[in-house]
């Protein structure tokens, strides 16, 4: 009690430090623990975003010490030149076909896997496996299968008296081939996610439907499919993002991009495929980035909504 009047003035006269020593120590520790990662992300994710836009305004040969600022000429060249039509068409066809293909087959595989059967754990793992495998390895394997002379597909076609299509020479067949392999590699991802969503469908709903005499197909159309719609939307966005950035399979199966030059592949070819056109490549990257950004914005909006409702 006698101490109180003495203590009070000391506290009052000493200016309260804005940041206590303890807090300062915590901030330092935060810096030590988090700074390296944050710095790396800033350096190799955010900085390139800006640099890439700057590069896109240059007439610049990769490796050359000099560059000339040419404003939007690269974009003008891309959109008015002969490239845009073929590249955008290839990108569109590839994206629509791979997204549609992996989602539809993913759904089909999920229905097949969603039954209490012996061996379905193994089947589920097998179906998902290609998704984690190297695109280069998978691309090589399928290159042999599709080979018009020695491939097993050609052999099977010969057995029924048909001759193999020229998968690697005809641009539209090349595109078809890469789409097929891409779907094969990615459908397991859609299947596993659809499977999890299907199993979250309340059992009593299904039992009630069965009681009312609804068959499998009817139950699926009227009950399961509507309940899967958030999952379908999620998959739609993620698979579009993935397809737009597809690279490995295209590079290994059709190195020249004959019919398979999507925006992503064109941007690679222009800078690193022998043309060394850095500025032009950056412009194509930027076009692709804007498309991806729009998709991501939709996705962020979706996540926000999910968090609200969760």
């Amino acid at each position, binding site marked *: 009690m006698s101490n109180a009047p003495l203590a009070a003035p000391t506290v009052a006269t000493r200016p309260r430090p804005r940041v206590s020593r303890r807090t300062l120590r915590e901030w330092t520790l935060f810096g030590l623990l988090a700074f390296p*990662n*944050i710095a790396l992300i800033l350096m190799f994710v955010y900085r390139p975003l800006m640099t890439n836009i700057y590069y896109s305004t240059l007439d610049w040969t990769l490796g050359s010490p000099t560059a000339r600022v040419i404003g939007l000429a690269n974009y003008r060249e891309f959109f008015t030149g002969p490239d845009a039509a073929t590249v955008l068409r290839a990108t569109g066809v590839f994206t629509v076909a791979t997204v549609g293909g992996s989602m539809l087959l993913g759904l089909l595989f999920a229905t097949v896997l969603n039954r209490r*059967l012996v061996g379905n754990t193994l089947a589920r793992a097998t179906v998902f496996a290609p998704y984690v495998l*190297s695109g280069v390895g998978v691309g090589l394997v399928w290159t042999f299968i599709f080979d018009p002379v020695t491939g097993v597909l050609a052999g099977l076609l010969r057995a029924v008296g048909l001759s193999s299509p020229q998968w690697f020479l005809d641009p539209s067949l090349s595109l078809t081939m890469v789409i097929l392999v891409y779907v094969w590699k990615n459908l397991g991802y859609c299947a596993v996610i659809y499977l999890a969503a299907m199993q979250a469908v309340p059992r009593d709903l299904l039992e009630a439907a069965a009681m009312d005499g609804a068959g499998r197909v009817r139950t699926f159309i009227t009950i399961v499919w509507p309940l899967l719609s958030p999952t379908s939307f999620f998959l739609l966005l993620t698979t579009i993002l993935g397809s737009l950035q597809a690279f490995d399979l295209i590079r290994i199966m059709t190195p020249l991009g004959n019919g398979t030059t999507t925006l992503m592949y064109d941007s690679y070819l222009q800078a690193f495929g022998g043309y060394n056109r850095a500025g032009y490549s950056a412009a194509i990257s930027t076009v692709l980035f804007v498309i991806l950004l729009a998709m991501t914005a939709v996705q962020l909006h979706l996540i926000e909504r999910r968090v609200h409702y969760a």
Partner: protein
Amino acid sequence: MSIDTAGPASGRAIAHQSLSRQVARRRIRIRFDDGGVGRPTLLGTIVGGYVPLLLATLIIALPLGWMVLGSFKTSGEVLSQHVVLLPHAPSFAAYRSASAQIDFGRLFLNSTIVTVVGSATKVVLAITTAYALVFLRFPGKRWIFLGILVALMVPSQVSLLPNYVFIAGLGGVNTYWGIILPGLGTAFGTFLLRQHFMSLPREILEAAEIDGAGHLMRLTRMVIPISTPTIATVALVTIVSEWNDYIWPLIITNDDSRMTLPVGLTLLKNVEGDPSSYPILMAGAIVVIVPVLVVFAFLQRYIVAGLTQGAVK
């Protein structure tokens, strides 16, 4: 009464809550049902269940099996116009001649170095960053997390050319650090671990703090040990993606002393345009695919959980 309506599932959930609620909830649990349709007949089960299941599995497994068979064939068998199903005299000839044409040991070593160093660093960075974001006070912490979250969505293709120019300028072409460094910042692992750390019971950590355990002690003695499943998930997904990584090592290396396996295979395919190299390339494909396949076979539930993260609430 309320417990009855909540059902056994939520009872289990509450029991597990104290450990890793987030992981348990996020890991995709597979429960099989028959779609609620009445008792199936044996024939119905076979035709409607097993046949489609077998077909689905074969569609995926056959090409991979074909690859394995092919790598044991002679080039004569592979090139034959008549499809040879099984190699007549299984041999490692393809593997031998593959390693004669391209230094597979070297490529394998390079891939291993890049994968081990890269993923180890990324996992450590993810753990420390997530810990800082969850358990330490820092002004603007939420914004930092948002920045990391957005980085997760930035497509890597836009950073290729600028990062190439930057790393090449520093002399990083054909070096291990040049391959590893640009990918080290980890948004995925940080995000996953942060979500998990948020779910840890605060009371235990607070009790430890009262007992005088500092942050580093709490991180290494408590947070890390009780988070092993999530850390394993992050580690496995990181390892697989580092091993498979293609476009960046392809751009930043042009000498086979530093190439990773996928890049080396590209080189082999470019050099060997003629089909006689097919068994060799198949052997190469096996060397790049099989390690991941083996890891996946044993630890698939972690990998699936990590890769399907965020898809299912």
